């Protein structure tokens, strides 16, 4: 399994390295290409979105680990598109009792086939207050997953008229606002909100951990090439030490993702504790790393034409999504307290 994972990860990385060059991404955010659509086409061909799904549902069968490697690599490449929302929502639909529902089955097939994308509620549960809510996803999304009553989720259709594109700082992804009173509920997924939140947390953590690695790699490369006062700035010890700290934290981020992967399933407290804490700690570390990567670039870090700001904005949006890290840590604490009171061992590492 480890070997297969590594191979699939490598295959994703190769495609992204080829497609998502710095030039291509900058052309995309400046509106000169449709890299997101091109990636979506390739992803469908290569089965990326269904990476976690069992083979009998048209997936690659890698489960949560597959979800992790996909988003680690997409984050590392700062790849544009609706992958995060789509893959998380797809996994939920495929696991739901509704996989047998004809409309949903068609939707799943369309998503796997690359002809439809999905959206998810950016701040899960925000819609419960009524009115409009913000979705991570494209305006052309076929449907969106939002929080329902209690632990339920609702899949709603997205009516063209009720959608507004939201202009956000992260230019590699799309956010839309929708008026829920105009949205048609397609189906309710009973009791699936905890799993959805775990998956969303995992995907956000993986995307951020990948992005932290990506922005750091680019920054280290820049530091070796950029000269000041007659030598590469990578030779300046103060900058070296910062890069060394970031390198260590970037590794820790990936370990946190794997901690979440191992604890995603089931109803035990560990399934609430680790995915949520992974999202909280990883997005916080990745945010610090990418902030300093902009700074380590000096003047050019403040220009649009270099890459670090794209990673920084993406990571900070990841940080804001699902729920604030403050709230996630509080919920993780409830899970930890429950585990410790019940004598459950949630700290054991396999």
């Amino acid at each position, binding site marked *: 399994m480890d070997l297969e994972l590594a191979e699939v990860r490598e295959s994703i990385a190769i495609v992204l390295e080829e497609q998502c060059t710095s030039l291509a991404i900058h052309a995309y955010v400046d509106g000169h290409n449709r890299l997101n659509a091109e990636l979506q086409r390739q992803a469908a061909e290569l089965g990326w979105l269904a990476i976690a799904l069992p083979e009998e549902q048209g997936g690659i069968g890698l489960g949560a680990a597959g979800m992790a490697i996909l988003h680690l690599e997409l984050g590392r490449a700062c790849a544009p598109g609706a992958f995060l929302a789509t893959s998380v929502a797809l996994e939920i639909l495929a696991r739901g009792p509704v996989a047998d529902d004809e409309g949903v089955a068609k939707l799943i097939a369309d998503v796997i086939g690359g002809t439809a994308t999905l959206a998810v509620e950016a701040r899960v549960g925000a819609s419960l207050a009524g009115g409009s809510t913000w979705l991570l996803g494209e305006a052309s999304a076929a449907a969106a997953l939002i929080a329902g009553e209690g632990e339920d989720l609702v899949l709603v259709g997205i009516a063209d008229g009720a959608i507004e594109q939201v202009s*956000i*700082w992260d230019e590699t992804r799309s956010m839309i606002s929708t008026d829920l009173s105009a949205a048609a509920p397609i189906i309710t997924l009973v009791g699936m909100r905890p799993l959805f939140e775990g998956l969303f947390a995992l995907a956000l953590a993986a995307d951020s951990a990948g992005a932290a690695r990506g922005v750091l790699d680019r920054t280290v490369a820049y530091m070796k090439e950029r000269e000041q006062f007659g030598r590469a700035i990578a030779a300046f010890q103060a900058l070296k030490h910062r890069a060394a700290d970031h390198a260590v934290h970037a590794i820790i981020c990936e370990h946190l993702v794997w901690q979440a992967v191992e604890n995603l399933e089931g109803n035990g407290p560990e399934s609430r504790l680790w995915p949520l804490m992974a999202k909280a700690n990883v997005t916080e570390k990745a945010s610090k790393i990418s902030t300093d990567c902009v700074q380590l670039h000096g*003047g050019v870090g*403040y220009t649009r034409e270099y890459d670090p*700001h794209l990673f920084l904005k993406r990571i900070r949006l990841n940080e*804001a999504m699902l729920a604030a890290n403050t709230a996630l840590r509080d919920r993780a604490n409830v899970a930890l307290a429950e585990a410790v009171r019940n004598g459950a061992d949630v700290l054991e590492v396999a």
Partner: protein
Amino acid sequence: MMIIEQKNDASVFRSAIRDWIKEALPNDWDALAERGTEDDHVEFQRWWFGERAKQGLAVPHWPVEFGGVGLGLAEQMIVADEMARAQAPMLDVHTVTLNHLPGTLIPCGNKEQQQKYLPPASRGTVWCQGFSEPGAGSDLASLRCRAVRDGDHYVINGQKIWSSMSRYAEHCILLVRTSTEGTKHAGISFLIMDMDTPGLEVRPIKQIDGQAEFSELFLTDVRIPVANRVGEENDGWRVAQATLSSERGLLAFEAGERSRHTMEAFYRSALDAKASWLEDDELRREFLTLLTDMQASRRFIRKLLKDHEEGAPPAVTAIASSQIKLFQTTLFQRIGDLIVRIEGVEGHFRRGFTPRRRLTGMTDFINSFGWTISGGTNEIMRNLIAERGLGMPRG
């Protein structure tokens, strides 16, 4: 009566400014600015400069002979304070005009240059600065933009970067290399360039906040009269030191005061709205911590201004300036970071051009890099503080 004429009575002066701003400035100017473009906002700043000039409030700190009234520090602080309090438009586009230009020409320019450039500047001509180069960065003195003497002109070829507001400027103070002999500091000259000189191309640099305050300058056979040289040939590094040490304390002061008002307003509206972050131990305390650090930095800036007025040696005030820059700009970034976390997803929505009149999540956070990187990166500040302030050896 111009408001500046009331400068001798502090409290009268203060309320005159306060009343005048209320009257002169449209109350919703920031909302207009947010809907407009960067160009619109520069136009607006030019208009505001003109309005301030009519009241003697544009360059009151300049000496009388050049259009100012030699306003003392206390009174300058009153002006800056009232502008900050009213969150009136900043005069970003005139930064070089207001500070670097007089800081250079008054000690180092000749009479002719002073008479030719300072009075129009006092009425609002926009100046920019061509110092940094793409290859040089923090190592300013390694500049390579070449000037070759041709009769009574210099012919310039080369490239400049990080030239703030040069899209809007009429003139530029320019550092060029007139000699490659000796140390890198020894062959630099200081010129004044008109921005409409043939051979000069200005290409805006798009920033990570979407704006383009800075430009690159491409100079191809640009001809500048020798009469436009400030100081002697090859003595430009010394002149540039005057430019760079032109007192920035008042800019830091105004930035600090503006930040104080935006933080206070943010807190007040949170109280009014019973914002949930005020109920959160972590976020609430972090806000108090930052507000307190801001208070200390405002005290520190006042001390620098006072020391400067009392004639503290430039070597001392230069270190304090570096210390303040490091602390204050990092503080602005910490504040931005907190607001991003408080605002959540909504903090990620982009608005149009924002005039920094209130705290807005990612906008402030992303803007903060303009503070921590430009005007000498904070890494350079740390070098200066360690070497000149703490007496540590160069590495």
